[in-house]
């Protein structure tokens, strides 16, 4: 392999640059926002977490369980989206 080819090889697009990884990254950032929102409440406004907007259960528990359930929900959405992308051929530009 020549030096020129070697350089080209090292500057190729990274392997994750695929349709499914783009979907994954989008969902990842959604979850990061949810997680960061929870952390911000815990760190800066813990008083809000004592409020009980959901049937007697406080926001700390509701948000925490929501993050766990949300992870599963996003995982299911990811599975379905990847199946659609992989099953339906390359995505249209």
């Amino acid at each position, binding site marked *: 392999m020549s030096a*020129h080819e*070697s*350089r*080209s*090889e*090292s*500057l*190729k*697009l*990274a*392997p*994750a*640059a*695929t349709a*499914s*990884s783009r979907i*994954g*990254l989008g*969902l*990842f950032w959604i*979850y990061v926002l949810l*997680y960061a929102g*929870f*952390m911000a409440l*815990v*760190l800066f406004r*813990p008083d809000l*977490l*004592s409020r*009980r907007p*959901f*049937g*007697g*259960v*406080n926001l*700390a*528990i509701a948000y*925490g*369980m929501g*993050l*766990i*359930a949300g*992870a*599963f929900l*996003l*995982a*299911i959405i*990811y*599975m379905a989206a*990847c199946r659609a992308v*992989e099953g339906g051929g390359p995505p249209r530009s």
Partner: protein
Amino acid sequence: MLYESSPVAIAIFAAFVLSVVGLSFYLGRKGQSAKGYYAAHGEIHWFVNGIAFAGDYLSAASFLGICGMIAFNGYDGFLYSIGFLAGWIVALFVIAEPIKALGKFTFADALDSRFNSRGIKLAVAISTLVVSIFYLIPQMVGAGDLIVPLLGLPHTVGVILVGVAVTMIVVTAGMVSTTWVQFIKGSLLVFFCGILAAMILNRGLVVGVGPAANLTPQVRTVTPDGTVLIDGQPQSKDHDLRPVGTLKALPDRYAGKTATGPLRPLEYLAALEDSTIVTWSSKNHSDAAGTHTTYSPVERKGSDLLKPGGYFKGLSTGKLADRLDFASLMLALFCGTASLPHILIRYYTVKDAAAARKSTVVGIAAIGAFYVLTLYLGLGAMTSGALDPTSTNMAAPLLAKSFSTTLFAIISAIAFTTVLGTVSGLIMAGSGAVAHDLVENVFGIPMTDHEKVRCGKIAAVGLGIIAMVLGVLFRSFNVSFLVGWAFNIAASANLPALVMLLFWPRTTKQGIVAAVTIGMLSSLAWILMSADTFEKVYGWSREASIVPFSQPGLVTIPLGFLVLVVVSLLTSPAPVVRRHG
């Protein structure tokens, strides 16, 4: 507290260990090739692999540690559950498919996939071994701690028992047997925790009666010659610490009642929030007569226990350093999961990227369900009137004992087997790092397929022996530190390199080596210089510490990214200009 060993627990544990070791020997013929030994031929079904993820990941720290922390401190233990589960989002959306596509047997394979660099293999192999050993120690110490009360055997016997069983499991069929042990453990753990949670809801909330309703402070003294005194009298079966953790008053809507009866999941939490609960605090002091620990009851509102700040005191005091410490821990939990070598190698056991993705989703479902259950288990233990004030780790087994001794035996045996599943994964990861990364790729010793397997088995035996020795040496060590250390080191050393390799084309091999090395060393150094380590490990003053907060991730994870970018830019070849047309 003194415990009586349970013959049923011994029988269940023995049956489980013999079954999995027998299964390992049965599967032994499938682990004879290198691909079979290190990656189970890539033939594990995605669903089995997903449950095995749970078996690999849900260690004693998750099961015993979180339940105990919730039982003694309330909501803050659940923050660990949230952080541990959130880490799987990084694994699924960022890591799963690329690492399956890039790697072969080990994490180093993936990081080195574009470079063929001995430097990368060496740095990553060392990082894998460091993380695995830091994770191994608390598992082994936990095994020893569990076996004393549960089976009535000495601590060292527990460590050796786990070490020998796990080494046999790994040596017989490598990743094949490890996977099935983790699958069985993961299934049993989630299933029986579900049963226990259902029993808690069916019992509802009950105002405390019996010994736990006695709210007189208790004093445990350890004299200079090692004798244990309870309230000034020698400890014995008839004169022991009383169990603690009770409900003092139900909400007003249950006025005149001493029990709520069966409750639905959200009703249970709402009723607990309006109840009055008695938890116990402890305070130590030493004098010529020995070390005295005074356990005192603290009456608290349920609403105070179900909000953050019970364990992470800084969240309520508002000190900046304490808040940064907490933020740093939660960042390490988020980033650490997808950087743990024993988790990453499980992606090589399925056939393709789609199977890797599906198995992660199954893993998230099982692990998420388990973490929701930990909240009920912890809160159920908090009001069970069965807690041992000296041991947070015994909360879940003692909760089970408050229902029946058979359930206690089953949960105890499962608690012990959680160690088997996790340790086998860790030894497998370490075995690959030694045999495949170091011996074959770094030292360049050529090996046939058969020799690669033999080398991996020898490495597994060596790691098993090291694990047993460390488990005995560190028996008095605060194990929760080591789990946190492992997450921080993994996240700081491995995640920046992995993420940048996948998403930044200008990443160079020098950048990866520098990021792994600096990330690992900086997080280790930070931990060793932290206030927590000064106080609880060295026995020095917290004020003497030279870092502002104890958890390093907030500094060392970004540092890993920064080092990689700077070194890659300094060592990157000039961009190639392409002509189009």
